[in-house]
């Protein structure tokens, strides 16, 4: 269980960090231009972090989670629609839970 005060502390902290990313890029540009290498770092990092979260989730889960994520990726590759990828994964995972018990 997470108590209310630590929950709001965490939300406030994350809100500040997010706001920092929104204003930080333009702020830094007042003093030094962002180098192309720094931009490549940030760009690669923001896709890497999402991929890392997915593989961690799958590694912690069972075949149910693996199948759902695999289907989401296949749908995305096939029709490039994140909404349908999400719906397909939910259908696989939901169906799996119903059949398994």
């Amino acid at each position: 269980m997470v108590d209310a005060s630590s929950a709001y502390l965490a939300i406030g902290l994350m809100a500040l960090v997010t706001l920092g990313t929104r204003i930080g890029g333009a702020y830094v540009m007042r003093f030094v231009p962002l180098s192309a290498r720094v931009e490549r770092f940030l760009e690669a990092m923001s896709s890497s972090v999402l991929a890392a979260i997915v593989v961690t989730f799958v590694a912690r889960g069972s075949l149910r989670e693996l199948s759902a994520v695999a289907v989401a990726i296949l749908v995305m590759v096939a029709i490039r629609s994140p909404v349908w990828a999400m719906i397909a994964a939910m259908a696989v995972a939901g169906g799996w839970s119903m059949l398994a018990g």
Partner: protein
Amino acid sequence: MDLPETSPPAGSSNTSRATSAPVTLTYEGVVRGARRLVPVSVFVIPFGIAYGVAAIEAGLTVDQAIAMSAFMFAGASQFAAIDLWQGPLPYLSLALVVLAVNARHLILGAAISPYVNQLPPGRWFLALCLLSDVNFADSYKLMKTGYRDAGLILGGGLLMWVTWLAATIVGVFAGAIATNLDYLGVDVVMAAFFGALTVGSVSGWRTGLPVLVACGVALLTMPLLPSGWNIIAAALAGGVVGAFLPVEEKGDREPTAHG
């Protein structure tokens, strides 16, 4: 919100140049920005609902789940945060994971800086405080062709914010009513969404290799590091690989659409 329609502009520092007419931020610009994004904002609704339901399942209260959407307004990082939502809350890894997921905002802000940095401090803040992929893509396109009202960014952001919040509220109450969310597959929404976003951001080995390295590092360090830190290690590793890959020779690079 991080929708995969746009990628951040690589090398915006090359494309930044001084602009002639002064940049303003007016009410008309705000209204125009909001109107322009009405069709796009609809696509945020399913994700907002999914986030709301998933947040309740992760153990957030109704107020906390809604507060997170209101104050963060950054879908991918909110999903990432609720994935780490276990008491005692790991503040540092929450902050760092949110920083890594939202790092792309830094690139968007840098790209649009030639325009917004002409504004006085208060308006400068207003123009940037709701910056996201969607309103960036729309405003950047217009401002490059000579439009000078940064209200466009704020207006688009406000519309997306209201939509995101409303969709969250729907999801939160749906989640609070539903009994067994596993039957709906809600627990896989985040992974499916992130998997789709990753696929959308990869085009060729330059973008693919950092992601592969990150996956490897995440798996290898998972048994060694406390919760969330394997993700931070993986994000850093992927970022470093991306930064040091040989650069493709291209001219004036711009934000490109993936899909």
